[in-house]
């Protein structure tokens, strides 16, 4: 069995910020030149939204550590996030977009529109997130 391509980033915020995730994905795309633009844009946007959500909901003034792992397969791309922030109070039922004049609240519904699967679980003191996008044929 060939080793699965895997990319891992451990982010400590502050001082690390979301740009570290863009850098991680730049590496992934270098090794995956065949991926379509739509798949690339969709997955990158979803992973940035998810990581931003984790950083935004961490306790103010407290450092949050977030481990981001990206794995690619022949037919899909997956990300797993684990973070030390407070337990996520996230309802992952299909959410509607907020009112057009709202300045926030689009992150989770946008992720749901961009990837095929999004799961959350609380394991001990850690939040675990997993998202998958199946490649378009």
């Amino acid at each position, binding site marked *: 069995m060939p080793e699965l391509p895997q990319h891992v980033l451990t982010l400590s915020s502050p001082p690390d910020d979301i740009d570290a995730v863009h850098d991680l994905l730049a590496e992934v795309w270098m090794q995956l030149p065949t991926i379509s*633009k739509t798949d690339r844009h969709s997955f990158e*946007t979803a992973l*940035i939204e998810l990581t*931003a959500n984790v950083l935004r909901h961490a306790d103010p003034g407290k450092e949050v550590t977030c481990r981001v792992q990206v794995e690619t397969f022949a037919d899909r791309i997956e990300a797993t996030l684990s973070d030390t922030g407070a337990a996520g109070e996230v309802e992952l039922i299909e959410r509607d*977009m907020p009112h*057009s004049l709202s300045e926030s609240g*689009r992150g989770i519904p946008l992720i749901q529109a961009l990837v095929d699967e999004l799961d959350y679980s609380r394991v001990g003191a850690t939040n675990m997130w997993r998202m998958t996008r199946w490649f378009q044929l």
Partner: protein
Amino acid sequence: MEFSIVDRDGDIAVLRLNGRLNMVSAGRVRDAVATAVADGRSRVVVDLTRVEFMDSSGLGALVSGMKAARLAGGDLRIASPTEQVKLVLQLTNMDRVLPAYDDAETAFANA
């Protein structure tokens, strides 16, 4: 994220962004639009030609700017979004509220 503001035709300000419009830069963009509006330039064009990535925080900054501009009797319009930005606008149904103009020069051509 780098940006510059160019004044055009009296009350029009063109904000040219370069880089990623995300949670890191959204606050600065929101402030820049608010300052332009407070200075009397209530018609604001945000030129997205060089924005390779925008997330929902960045979109929130555009909505904030649009509301500030409209309160002052003007509007905020976006020009020349890249493919990823168009994707975010479509999936959030915001392409109807923030329609894209071809370029910064024509965004207020009919207003």
